[in-house]
């Protein structure tokens, strides 16, 4: 294939380095793909454009994929977009199937990656012009659609789950509203620290890592059951591609959702795996099993996650608009080289374009190989005694929180505060996952809500009358909510019936 001809040996070494470092950054709780790219950005100055892109794309692919390791093995999402991977990944680890879970995850990742890459290569310009048809009204509805996942992942009480989600939305609004630079919901003493609100990453790892450690401390740091399971010789715990039989539709649907959400400028990457997960649950044959360690859930979250990469590159390369925060940093790399990304980028830089595509192919393959052959060693992380691994995790979380906004001490306090909050939440029945999803999507929901109203002079009817896309989105939202309520009702009923049969 001649699209590979532009790659020099050096650029292949750089993709490899990028993927390798990316996986490490993704796998460390508190460090993200975005951070890795921002860190390596100044280094790219010394490289030529294709080499620079090779390194950065390697970091991007590696960083997004690496997040699944701590999500599955330690129940700590390494990056916000691997949040949904914890839902089924960690329960599988608890059953002693950590290695299998990881292999399912990376297989789904590479499928999602190649799927979105194909879409990027063949349909980028057409899709980009569809993406800009999505005005703030449609974007608000897309976020609302993503938020419906709160209803479907609520455990036990549906009302409680929704309450947790809305609480998350509320807390995400703390700080300055970017439109008019005015603070709200901030106590006067903390005005400076909370100017930009609570940073997402420290909140995320605080709620998951620190809260969990506190809970285990309360229970006396006893080794967990799955730490004693002997290395899985059990056939059931072996990975085979057969797991993907019957999951083809799920994989494709999740990759499509990932690619599509990644494509929408300004709708964050985490929304991709969240939406994919909720739709998998809605369409699943046995939705009640999701969340208890089903490969189905991992496949959906991870294929959407990597589908996002190709998706986010679509508006970037065919319009010059970054699809998510990571691609926004990539624009910086182009500019450092003096290359303007815009609507004519692909036609005026055909060499660079094929360089990007071939780099993506190689990066995905390298990611798969690197992960696949190191998984056996990674999976052993779960056997490290808690008294050794937890202190390491805490220090990593602290470093990551401090570094995420390039050195802000308040982010460390955010980490600890939300660790304590998460601990209290678990005790009083506020559900962490819905809370976090609300927190992740809250600010965007507000932005597009207000933007829509600014455009319509305050008329709320704009959310229904803005063309056919809005109608479709509403149908999807209503369908998703109805399904969640029905599912919740059904689970409750079966539970009741079970108790009745037991009594009689």
């Amino acid at each position: 294939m001649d699209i590979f001809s532009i790659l020099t040996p050096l650029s292949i070494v750089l993709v490899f380095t990028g993927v390798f470092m990316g996986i490490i950054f993704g796998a460390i709780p508190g460090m993200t793909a975005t951070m890795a790219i921002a860190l390596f950005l100044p280094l790219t100055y010394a490289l030529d454009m294709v080499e620079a892109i090779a390194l950065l794309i390697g970091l991007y692919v590696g960083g997004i994929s690496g997040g699944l390791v701590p999500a599955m093995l330690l129940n700590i999402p390494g990056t916000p977009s691997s949040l949904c991977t914890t839902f089924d990944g960690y329960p599988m680890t608890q059953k002693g199937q950590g290695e299998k879970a990881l292999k399912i995850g990376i297989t789904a990742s590479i499928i999602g990656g190649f799927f979105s890459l194909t879409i990027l290569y063949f349909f980028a310009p057409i899709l980009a012009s569809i993406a800009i048809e999505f005005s703030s009204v449609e974007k608000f509805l897309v976020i609302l659609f993503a938020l419906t996942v709160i209803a479907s992942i609520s455990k036990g009480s549906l009302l409680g789950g929704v309450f947790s989600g809305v609480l998350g939305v509320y807390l995400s609004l703390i700080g300055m509203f970017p439109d008019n630079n005015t603070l709200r919901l901030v106590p006067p003493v903390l005005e400076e620290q909370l100017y930009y609100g609570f940073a997402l990453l420290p909140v995320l790892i605080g709620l998951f890592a620190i809260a969990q450690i506190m809970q285990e401390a309360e229970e006396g740091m006893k080794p967990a059951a799955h730490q004693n399971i002997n290395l899985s010789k059990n056939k059931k715990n072996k990975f085979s591609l057969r797991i993907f039989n019957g999951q083809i539709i799920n994989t494709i649907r999740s990759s499509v959702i990932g690619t599509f959400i990644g494509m929408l400028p300004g709708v964050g990457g985490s929304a991709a795996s969240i939406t994919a997960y909720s739709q998998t649950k809605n369409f699943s044959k046995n939705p009640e099993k999701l969340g208890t360690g089903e490969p189905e859930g991992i496949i959906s979250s991870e294929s959407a996650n990597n589908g996002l990469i190709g998706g986010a590159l679509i508006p970037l390369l065919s319009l010059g608009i970054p699809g998510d925060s990571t691609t926004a940093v990539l624009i910086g790399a182009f500019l450092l080289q003096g290359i303007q990304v815009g609507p004519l980028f692909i036609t005026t830089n055909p060499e660079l374009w094929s360089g990007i595509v071939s780099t993506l192919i190689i990066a995905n393959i390298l990611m798969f190989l690197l992960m696949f052959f190191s998984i056996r060693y990674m999976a052993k992380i779960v056997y490290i005694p808690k008294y050794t691994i937890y202190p390491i995790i805490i220090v990593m979380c602290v470093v990551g929180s401090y570094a995420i906004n390039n050195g802000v001490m308040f982010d460390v306090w955010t980490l600890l505060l939300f660790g304590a909050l998460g601990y209290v939440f678990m005790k009083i029945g506020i559900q962490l996952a819905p809370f976090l999803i609300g927190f992740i999507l809250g600010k965007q929901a507000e932005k597009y809500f207000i933007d829509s109203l600014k455009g319509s002079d305050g008329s709320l009817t704009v959310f229904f009358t803005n063309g056919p896309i809005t109608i479709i989105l509403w149908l999807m939202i209503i369908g998703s909510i109805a399904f969640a309520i029905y599912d919740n009702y059904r689970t409750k009923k079966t539970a009741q019936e079970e108790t009745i049969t037991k009594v009689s």
Partner: protein
Amino acid sequence: MKKLFSVLMVVMISAVLAACGSQSSGDGSSDQSAKANGAASEAKIPDRIRVVIGSSSTGGDTYQNSDAVSRYLEESLGTNMKVDAIGAVQAFSELDRADDDGNTIMFFHDMAYLGVEYGSINEKNALENWKIGPVVSTNPGNAFLASGDAPYDTMAESAEWLKNNPDETITVAIEAGGVSEISFDGYFLWVKEKYGEEVADRIKVYPTGSQEDKNQALWDGNADIINGSIGGNNEYTKEGVESKIKMKFLGITAGKRVEGYDIPTFAEQGIEVNGKEFVFDKEFFFLLPKDIDPNFAKALDEAVAQVVENEDYTSDLAKNAYIPSYISADEAEDYLLEKRATFQNIIKNAPTVDELTE
């Protein structure tokens, strides 16, 4: 397979080591130049200087300008500089807590004082409370754009068009509280002066955030004119862009035209406020802690003076249409205070965004 993996590992590790090796040898040579430099100016330069910038984006012009200048300053100061994009509020607070030896300094642009005037930055961060360092470079690209098929080609024509079409309005997308708003204020006050209240009243504002938001506002039809920049928007104005997203420049606020671009300045179009040409150059400068070691401040100033003479630096900036524009630290203070006074006056006379969105 295991063998292959270990081979790859070795490649990786050696690559890292090689990178470190070359880096440390580089450090060694710069150590010597540091000594040479130190002897000359008798300043003690910290081993690592943290440059905090007033933007949290690594894709914006603040980052690019700070990155370029610190890359060259590193050499002439013989130290290691790290640009941290932490955003205005955090950057000011870091600067406030910084030691006086220069290990933390700030790099920002006119937003530093415009933000204070518009109330988006706390008053305690006013220019008076810092030691103002040298002005380093200019981004002359601050511009206004309209959709490619708009019935006017310049800002001046847009006002004329508004006068001739009494039923029409023009909505301008800006980001409140900074460079974008001051440029709009200049245009608005001129229209009001020249064409009267009636025409000016038909100019509305669509306040929004990033450049992407402003572009989207134009495409959605929520705005007719948007604030933008040559660097950020030029790609959309080129021949061959789909008409749906095609844009055209209506003018730049800089004092001089930008080489290679056929875009008239506000001044050329006759846009005046209070009888004076409206000119706004977006300039980048250093801010230092108030009680900074004077030797360090002097060394930094001298080093910047050296860097702006460097042709490599100039061509680095030219990639994105930025230009070096050195004003020594001594003069920069008066210069910026005077610049601020001019715009204070404009801000005082301009309507608030509340009035413009009604």
